[in-house]
């Protein structure tokens, strides 16, 4: 596939991620911080996000399996996930976290379990999208700004 086609595919794909609210302008901020001296910045931050999120999702699953749920602990994990998703611009994940925190405050187990499923789902969607975008990037070179 030639570079021009790849770049167009990348531009279109990226546009769709914004359009469907998988990503918001914070992701653009990250891209603007990347330059020749720090060419892997976005990939590095996103990779940290993946690792951190997976850890948090595991902790959340464990915390919600307990006989007596510690909602403060659950809330603390969701707060972290909300923060990191906001920092990279993963808007849909962030939005679910907001609802999730409300259920924590209400100590609503069912609501929390539902949100956990939702946040896992949104996380896996945005992860796939970002990985696809990085693949196109790797094949085509740089992101045209």
């Amino acid at each position, binding site marked *: 596939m030639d570079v021009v086609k790849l770049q167009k595919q990348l531009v279109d794909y990226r546009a769709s991620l914004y359009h469907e609210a998988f990503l918001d302008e*914070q992701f653009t901020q990250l891209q603007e*911080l990347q330059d020749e001296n720090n060419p892997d910045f976005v990939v590095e931050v996103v990779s940290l996000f993946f690792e951190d999120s997976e850890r948090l999702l595991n902790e959340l699953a464990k915390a919600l399996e307990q006989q007596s749920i510690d909602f403060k602990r659950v809330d*603390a994990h969701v707060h*972290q996930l909300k*923060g990191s998703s906001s*920092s*990279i611009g993963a808007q849909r994940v962030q939005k679910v976290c907001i609802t999730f925190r409300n259920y924590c405050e209400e100590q609503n187990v069912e609501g929390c379990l539902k949100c956990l499923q939702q946040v896992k789902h949104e996380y896996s969607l945005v992860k796939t999208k970002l990985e696809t975008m990085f693949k196109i990037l790797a094949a085509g070179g740089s992101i045209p700004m």
Partner: protein
Amino acid sequence: MGMAAESQFHVLAVDDSIIDRKLIERLLKTSSYQVTTVDSGSKALEFLGLHEDDTTNPSTPCVSPNNHQEVEVNLVITDYCMPGMTGYDLLKKIKESSSLRDIPVVIMSSENVPSRISRCLEEGAEEFFLKPVRLSDLNKLRPHLMKTKSKDQHQKQEKQEEKSAFQSPKQQQQEKEEHQQQQQSSNNKRKAIEEGLSPERTRPRYNGITTVV
């Protein structure tokens, strides 16, 4: 580049989130600051050379060898919500220390809670940034950093730098970005808070230049 002065400024960034540490480090380095990041308030105090006993002797003169910092830090930027010592606790400890109280402290938070913000500002924080922090936010740090260096000499130097900065295309581009970002939603909250609490903050020198443009 007239940015030589900034490479001398050393900022200590404190955040328990590894993602946010990476982000703030990049933002600060892009703004030509030297950066050290730590993941907790206690590590920050350690880095600043503050030991438990020092805070119980607020009248200890700065010349005392016990209070001497290993490395000079010109500004501390810290997250508010951290396990153990919060950003607010860290701010308090710094302001209570005779050796550290002149270091400007900036608080960051993902939550826009007015009472939290005023509490921090009252305790002596110079600025309160909402996360995610942007490059345009970091432009607000410069006046605070300039204050900590020797006053008159640097004010003159700063005026000269602003004149040449005004002419540089990169600076104009940064200001354009700042202006564009100000027209977008989220920054309005920050501006509202600033305007309400301190008239001086609405007129740092960069805003002066922007209005001229």
